[in-house]
């Protein structure tokens, strides 16, 4: 997609990337390392958890970026372009992992928080989900919230977290994830359900229903 000019005549004042600035940054790959290296590494580390693999993925991202530099036209920032490449590299990594080992994890949360429900299958009144405040927009601006989110994602087993993030962060369809990781539809579904259940529980306990957090 080329640089959009005049497309939003009289519209919002969206900050646009200066073409010259983008061109300079794009023409000097070693500057990417200083400017975007850490950010890419942080994201990769959150996704794959292993520093050496995260470093490899960042390296592959930069190398792929150099090879395809002519495809970068400054329509977006260098960083978001690099992030897009990194996401593909992460998927490739998991695809390979899925071929080598079984990606299915049905051990995690075997009883799906059974203590939350009475034996007949209804929420125990004291333990049912409570109203979450503050609302979404407010939380988005608080670093402590994002740290809680990171810690909660970190508590999920690696493979469960990986499928959850593919589905909810990369916005891949379940079918794509299944074929990428060679897992069955129903196993993916079980893993996602348990990931959601556990993440909700963790966020409730450590943030939304935590009396020590100032809302």
């Amino acid at each position, binding site marked *: 997609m080329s640089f959009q000019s005049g497309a939003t005549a009289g519209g919002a004042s969206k900050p646009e990337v200066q073409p010259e600035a983008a061109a300079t940054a794009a023409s000097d790959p070693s500057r990417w390392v200083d400017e975007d290296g850490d950010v890419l590494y942080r994201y990769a580390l959150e996704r794959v958890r292993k520093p050496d693999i995260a470093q490899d993925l960042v390296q592959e991202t930069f*190398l792929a970026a150099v090879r395809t530099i002519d495809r970068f036209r400054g329509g977006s920032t260098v960083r978001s372009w690099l992030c897009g490449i990194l996401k593909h590299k992460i998927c490739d990594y998991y695809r390979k992992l899925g071929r080598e080992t079984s990606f299915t994890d049905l051990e995690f949360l075997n009883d799906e928080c059974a203590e939350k429900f009475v034996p007949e299958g209804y929420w125990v009144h004291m333990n049912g989900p409570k109203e979450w405040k503050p609302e979404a927009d407010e939380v988005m601006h608080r670093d402590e919230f994002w740290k809680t989110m*990171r810690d909660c994602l970190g508590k999920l087993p690696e493979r469960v977290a990986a499928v959850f993030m593919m589905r909810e962060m990369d916005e891949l369809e379940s079918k794509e994830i299944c074929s990428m990781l060679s897992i069955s539809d129903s196993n993916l579904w079980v893993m996602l359900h348990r990931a959601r259940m556990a993440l*909700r529980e963790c966020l409730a306990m450590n943030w939304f229903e935590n009396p020590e957090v100032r809302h």
Partner: protein
Amino acid sequence: MFQEHRSWLQLQIVLLICRFAPTCTEVARILSLGMDKQLSLIMRMKLRIHYLMCSFCERYAKQLKYMRTVAREFPEKIGEISDAKLPTEAKERLKEALLK
């Protein structure tokens, strides 16, 4: 879940609804499934009926959607809150590799 002040008739109605409505554990599973594919009309109606008597599951549904919104913002935010750094030698190695 049954309140004591209900009359016999009310109780029978509740029991009838219960027989056709899924339990909360089932609803939690269905809701998760609904995050990944379109549920049938019958299933969506069952959920509506379930919400009439269970605000917990209605909240659970809201929170699942909320977690999706939050998850989509996460990649953007992680660069700001994490203090992990690419080791200096890795950076130097990278720059060298890029110059080739």
